[in-house]
């Protein structure tokens, strides 16, 4: 095993596996193991976990209900009644957030709900006053309105909501206001990758500097990585499948896609060493390879579909097996470096 001499006790993550190994090597007694495990994961932790889970699921379901209620566009409810009802809900959420304080999850969830209700208001407003305004304006206003709250929220889910709204705004704006020439259309992928990539980089910087403990959640990192990977991989796939009519913007996006995959790999393989984003990157590469194989097979075995799909199945097994083998190898290398 590779052993770096500078490893201090603080570098070794304390977890259940470590405790079990200490017991297995008879470094601690069974009582010591029980004590350590109780210290690492206190018995009341699951209560906190389940209460957070219920809070998240409950709020999400209530908000979905509100969204679908207004999406029905009830003709019998007067327009001003609809709009004031939503504002009333918005007001109650804010009152709750003020009462519970933004330091607590309940306050943060209420602020998040207020942000969602702002979007519901915008949608209903567009339903009632039909001006023919482009849809990107709705998302632009939504994104602007909730940006201030998002900055002060110190809440990862709030940022994810804002980022999602802003992504939709970017897509619609590109299509409806930027009005790109045909040749430039695919540059939007670079836009998505840049926006979500910026979010990912900021997340890593602030967490590394220990300035934002609330961002130090693994799911945030993985979600953002996926949000960057999708616009990186899509132009590559389009390029593979579409043989003719490749615009220069698609070539640029595809190049950015390749470089982006490399950068992400380097970031999580050597700098932050995290298996989850690495697995996401590997999956993305697998999908690109699959597309390549599919394109090749469709070209060459157009008449014999049985053979084509048979080979496709074999290729799939091979590609994913290789990816899993590679990931397992990385795990052992990285763990050797760690402990």
């Amino acid at each position, binding site marked *: 095993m590779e052993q770096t001499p500078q490893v201090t006790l603080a570098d070794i993550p304390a977890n259940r596996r470590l405790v079990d190994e200490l017991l297995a090597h008879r470094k601690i007694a069974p009582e010591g193991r029980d004590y350590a495990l109780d210290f690492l994961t206190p018995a009341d932790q699951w209560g906190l976990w389940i209460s957070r889970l219920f809070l998240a699921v409950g709020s999400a379901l209530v908000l979905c209900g509100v969204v679908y209620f207004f999406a029905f*566009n009830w003709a019998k409810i007067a327009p001003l009644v609809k709009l004031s009802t939503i504002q009333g809900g918005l007001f109650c959420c804010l009152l709750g957030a003020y009462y519970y304080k*933004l330091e607590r999850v309940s306050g943060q969830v209420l602020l998040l709900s207020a942000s969602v209700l702002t979007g519901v208001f915008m949608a209903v407003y567009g*339903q009632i006053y039909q001006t*023919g305004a482009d849809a990107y304006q709705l998302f632009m206003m939504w994104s602007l309105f909730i940006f*201030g709250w998002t900055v002060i929220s*110190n809440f990862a889910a709030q940022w994810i909501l804002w980022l999602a709204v802003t992504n939709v705004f970017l897509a619609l704006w590109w299509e409806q206001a930027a009005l790109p020439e045909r040749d430039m259309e695919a540059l939007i992928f670079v836009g998505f990758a840049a926006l979500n990539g910026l979010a990912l980089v900021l997340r890593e910087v602030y967490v590394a500097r220990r300035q934002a403990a609330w961002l130090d959640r693994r799911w945030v990192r993985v979600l953002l990585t996926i949000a960057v990977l999708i616009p990186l991989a899509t132009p590559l796939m389009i390029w593979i499948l579409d043989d003719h009519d490749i615009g220069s913007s698609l070539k640029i996006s595809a190049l950015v896609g390749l470089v982006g995959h490399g950068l992400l790999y380097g970031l999580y393989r050597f700098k932050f060493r995290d298996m989850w984003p690495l697995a996401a990157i590997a999956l993305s590469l697998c999908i690109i390879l699959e597309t390549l194989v599919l394109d090749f097979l469709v070209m060459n075995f157009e008449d014999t579909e049985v053979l084509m799909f048979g080979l496709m199945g074999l290729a799939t097994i091979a590609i994913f097996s290789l990816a899993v083998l590679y990931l397992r190898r990385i795990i052992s290398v990285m763990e050797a470096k760690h402990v």
Partner: protein
Amino acid sequence: MRSKIMIGLAVLIFAALNYGIYEKEQIIGKGEILLLELAPVDPRSLMQGDYMNLRYALERAEPVKAQMEEQKKRGYMVIKPDADNVAQFVRFHGGEELQAGERLLRFHKEYSRVTIVPDSFLFQEGHAKFYENAKYGVFKFDEKDKRLLVGLAGDDRKIIVVEEPEL
């Protein structure tokens, strides 16, 4: 401190939202009605329910077809009501002052088609049957030429009001 910022932002947002309502209600309250004839043509909006795609007869008017080549992708056309208060095409707008009675309509040009916006009408889910025979789009214009699509009208040029039997 953060709570105070949150409340401060909330006040601004409430002000903006309600100003938006006030602005549009002014158009509905004080605006002038103008009808746009529909051309004979039902999808669903994610957060807004059912809607109907609208095609206006104006989009197919001969002078529109003849002059659209030199138009940009987004622009305005000048219209004027006829004796029945139905809008007729005058010219494409180039930034000049409008004559009395003239109004502006916004359009999008895509490939070789001009689309007047709003090009959809939103209504309660399942109400499509009430609007099937609509003949006109009913617009309201205020003096600053802001416009709203307030409803659809049938042959009689009266706005269609949905009256469902009480359950």
